[in-house]
């Protein structure tokens, strides 16, 4: 019984722990390898949201899209249950959010996207959302922001084993195992998971005569994969680690409400290998890392005899440093070389690209660490031309014991994708990188660690935005035609109430985003000054959770305002408002969770004519082997 209470307390600690991280003090964790050097040490002024571990724990059977849609200010565009899901941060497009895994950008070199429906939360350890431009630190694609997925290891923790099974509506079954062996000098871990779902949910087909209720057809989803990690302490100063991450997904692509049946399917396979070396002694740290990514996508549409294979390979080599110049000054100098190779039906012969980037950051803080500032620069060579020179400046300071002010300004850019450059027909080898800048101010108000309010205003401009548009002959091609201006306001408020042994956490957030076309291509004057498609002007979220001993009851509500679906704002999707309920109970080594999704049984669409599931359920049982701290 005592152990049970202890576990509960431990668990509560993780929930509440995140509330207490509000000083500017650099968090130093002994015996933890920090690979996210730039995010941890050289980011200042950006609004950064860390998804807390309790929330991560309650999304173990969901994908990253589900998690971010419910618990972040990243707007997720989902094409349906299990279908493609892409992010939009601060009114930007799907390829304007970098996804940085252990320091490496996962954005696909062919289309610039990362499909968040294919990233299972089960394999992730931490999710940090960096809002706003971060081009100087993270390069091409970090325009609206960057999402960081980092893994780390603690030495000397012994054996850890977690097994999980889940089942849900629409033939949804999942199994997963996590194993970790943590010795004094060596940590190895393996996570394996398997997911199958029919996803044949019912919906009202509002596009058919008589508006019949139908079951979604051709929507099955299969995914399996593993993540294997190894960390080795060579000596007191040196550590190395290796990661192997493999994912295999096979999805059917369902029809839309306005088309008839579909036989299309898509297979995604990815293998990602990374190696890191870290040296730390006195005032200097060095990092050398390398990655190899191999991705394959097969899209089939037997109706039109389409069988399209796309293959991409990425090699990355990177070295950087963290040098303590002075007691209160840090310097980072780094170099990155990336080699991309891709082939697809649009460019059968295959294409390749070399990019070399130099980056530099300088951080200064005062003795009490109540303020700091970071200046960064990045210069990137793409094959034979230079991307725009990218500086950034950020600062944050404690203004009053309850108030922290932050500001960040950055140039941003995005290198054209292989499809934009070379796809036949329509690819344009003369495309220039998109270029812009973003700026933001935040004020954080905290009161006795129980109340925290963050307010942010942002303003950004992206010029030479690449869009595919038809010319007068109806031929589509990629051009640097658009200029998009995004500005808005983000507010997050959290409050915690303790009443005897009951804890009540509430979190509310609201986003106001105006993102307009300031320059459009010839013949598209109708879309000038109009809101960018699929960017809602208003979104809001509410989370409330009640914790009593081993029981946690959480309710999440999402409001998404109307979104235009055409560039001239002539067509739109109505707002929707959905709720999700989750009940957690810890019983000894078991953690039992029950989720009710779309509690109010709302019929809605995120993408026009793509139905979303109504009321549905999910149950998960998680078993955790007691930690043996004696090793």
């Amino acid at each position, binding site marked *: 019984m005592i152990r049970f209470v202890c576990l509960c307390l431990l668990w509560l600690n993780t929930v509440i722990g995140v509330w207490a991280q509000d000083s500017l003090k650099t968090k130093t964790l002994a015996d933890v390898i920090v690979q996210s050097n730039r995010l941890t040490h050289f980011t200042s002024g950006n609004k950064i949201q860390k998804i807390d571990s309790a929330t991560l724990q309650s999304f173990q059977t969901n994908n990253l899209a589900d998690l971010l849609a419910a618990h972040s200010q990243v707007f997720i565009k989902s094409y349906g249950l299990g279908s493609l899901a892409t992010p939009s941060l601060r009114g930007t497009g799907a390829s304007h959010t970098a996804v940085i895994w252990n320091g490496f950008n996962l954005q696909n070199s062919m289309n610039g996207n990362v499909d968040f429906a294919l990233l299972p939360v089960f394999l992730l350890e931490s999710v940090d959302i960096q809002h706003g431009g971060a081009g100087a630190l993270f390069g091409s694609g970090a325009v609206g922001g960057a999402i960081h997925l980092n893994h780390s290891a603690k030495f000397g923790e012994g054996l850890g084993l977690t097994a999980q099974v889940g089942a849900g509506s629409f033939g949804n079954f999942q199994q997963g195992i996590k194993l970790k062996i943590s010795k004094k000098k060596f940590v190895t871990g393996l996570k394996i998971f398997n997911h199958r779902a029919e996803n044949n949910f019912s919906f009202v087909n*509002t*596009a*058919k*005569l008589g*508006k019949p209720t139908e079951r979604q057809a051709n929507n099955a989803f299969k995914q399996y994969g593993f993540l294997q990690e190894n960390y080795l302490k060579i000596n007191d100063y040196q550590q190395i680690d290796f990661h192997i991450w493999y994912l295999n997904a096979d999805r059917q692509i369902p029809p*839309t*409400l*306005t*088309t*008839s*049946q579909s036989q299309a399917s898509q297979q995604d396979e990815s293998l990602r290998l990374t190696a890191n070396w870290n040296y730390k002694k006195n005032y200097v740290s060095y990092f050398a890392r390398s990655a190899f990514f191999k991705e394959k996508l097969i899209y089939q549409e037997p*109706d*039109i*005899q389409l069988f399209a294979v796309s293959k991409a390979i990425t090699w990355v080599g990177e070295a950087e440093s963290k040098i303590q110049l002075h007691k209160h000054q840090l310097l980072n100098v780094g170099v990155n070389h990336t080699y991309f190779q891709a082939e697809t039906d649009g460019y059968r012969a295959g294409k390749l690209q070399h990019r070399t980037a130099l980056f530099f950051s300088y951080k200064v803080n005062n003795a009490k660490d109540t303020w700091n500032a970071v200046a960064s620069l990045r210069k990137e060579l793409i094959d034979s031309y230079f991307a725009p020179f990218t500086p950034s400046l950020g600062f944050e300071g404690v203004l009053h014991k309850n108030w922290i002010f932050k500001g960040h300004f950055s140039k941003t850019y995005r290198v054209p994708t292989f499809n934009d450059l070379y796809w*036949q*027909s329509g690819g344009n080898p003369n495309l220039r990188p998109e270029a812009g800048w973003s700026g933001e101010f935040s004020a954080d108000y905290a009161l006795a660690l129980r109340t925290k309010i963050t307010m942010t205003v942002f303003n950004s401009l992206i010029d030479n935005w690449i869009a595919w*548009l*038809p010319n*007068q*002959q*109806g031929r589509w091609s990629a051009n640097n035609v658009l200029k998009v201006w995004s500005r808005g306001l983000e507010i997050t408020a959290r409050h915690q109430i303790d009443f005897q042994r009951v804890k009540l956490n509430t979190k509310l957030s609201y986003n106001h985003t105006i993102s307009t076309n300031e320059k459009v*291509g010839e*013949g*598209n004057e*109708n*879309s000038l000054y109009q809101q960018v498609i699929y960017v809602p002007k208003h979104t809001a979220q509410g989370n409330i959770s009640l914790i009593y001993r081993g029981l946690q009851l959480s309710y999440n509500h999402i409001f998404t305002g109307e979104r235009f*679906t*055409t*560039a*001239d704002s*002539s*067509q739109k999707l109505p707002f929707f408002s959905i709720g999700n309920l989750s009940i957690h109970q810890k019983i000894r080594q078991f953690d039992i969770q029950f989720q009710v999704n779309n509690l109010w049984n709302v019929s809605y669409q995120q*993408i*026009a*004519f*793509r139905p979303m599931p109504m009321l549905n359920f999910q149950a998960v049982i998680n078993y955790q082997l007691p930690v043996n701290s004696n090793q």
Partner: protein
Amino acid sequence: MKANVFLISILAISLLACSKSEDTAPAGKYSSGVFIVNEGQFQTGTGTVSFLNRDSKMVENDIFQMVNNRPIGNILQSLQIHNDRAYLVVNNAKKVEVVQAWDFKEVGTIQGLEMPRYFIGIDEKKGYISQWGAGGLEGSIKVVDLQTNTITKTIQVGRGAEKMLKVDNKVFVTCNGGFGNDNRVFIIDNQKDEVSATINTPDNANSLVLDANNKIWITCNGRSQWNGMASVTVSPAQLIRINPTNNQIEQNFAFDRHGLNNLVINAGRNLLFYTYSGRVFSQNINSGISANPLIRRGFYGLGHDATTDLLYAADAGNFSSNGKIIRFNPSGVAVDSMTVGIAPNGFYFR
């Protein structure tokens, strides 16, 4: 009791209304005017129909959604009115929506189609639908029972069965190749519902009209190939004239490049209009290809309104936001323009 009186009076009124409509041709908001076919956004969108009132010059957009509270479906290819019913051929949704032509109220859906393109009414009970077939590499005519809206027969024709024209008891079917190529016009005996003859034509015939002399004019697009940078002409476009009594090609006008489409004819049936190489041309049925275009820009669709003697041209713009129609007088001078739905491709004048 009160309720009963109410019900009876409602019933009486509706009966009265019914008998009234049986006696005279039904009249409604859309009895007279111009229907504009808007394909809608590719992949996720829905086609729409816009309606232009010639007198007020007002355009009402998306009338199907307004009346029936649902979208038509993905890629509206064409609209044809027959027996006071409008047939909306929805390509990617593989169906034909049937509505009452005068008020656009839904009455049925014809299913069991693969990439349907155009509808033509044969008689009170029968209609034909041309289709490209699964994969867009076949072509057939589906015979439809107009009373049950079901398919009764399939007639195999050439690749990419496209526009149809009925002359006496013969239906001429152009075959534009679909996603491939073809070089035939098929002739169907509409009493037997069988192919009675084929005519070999230049490559990829796509549109056809009947002139004042009862001769059929057909635009043949020609053939092109993508060389990695641009479409290269393999065989150039040709405009041909067929005599429907003996199925012979009587005249043949050749162009330099491929890309000839959207053939329409004026009310007097002596002046042809078509699009070629990003221009609109007009051509008298007794003369050759004009050296100068009528309008120095291309359009996604053309129509000629006999009532006003105006040429209607569809500007699909960027295919992803609302398009425009522009009306031209016979000498090619723009009269006015109106905003319609996304990707307008054709007209039906009533």
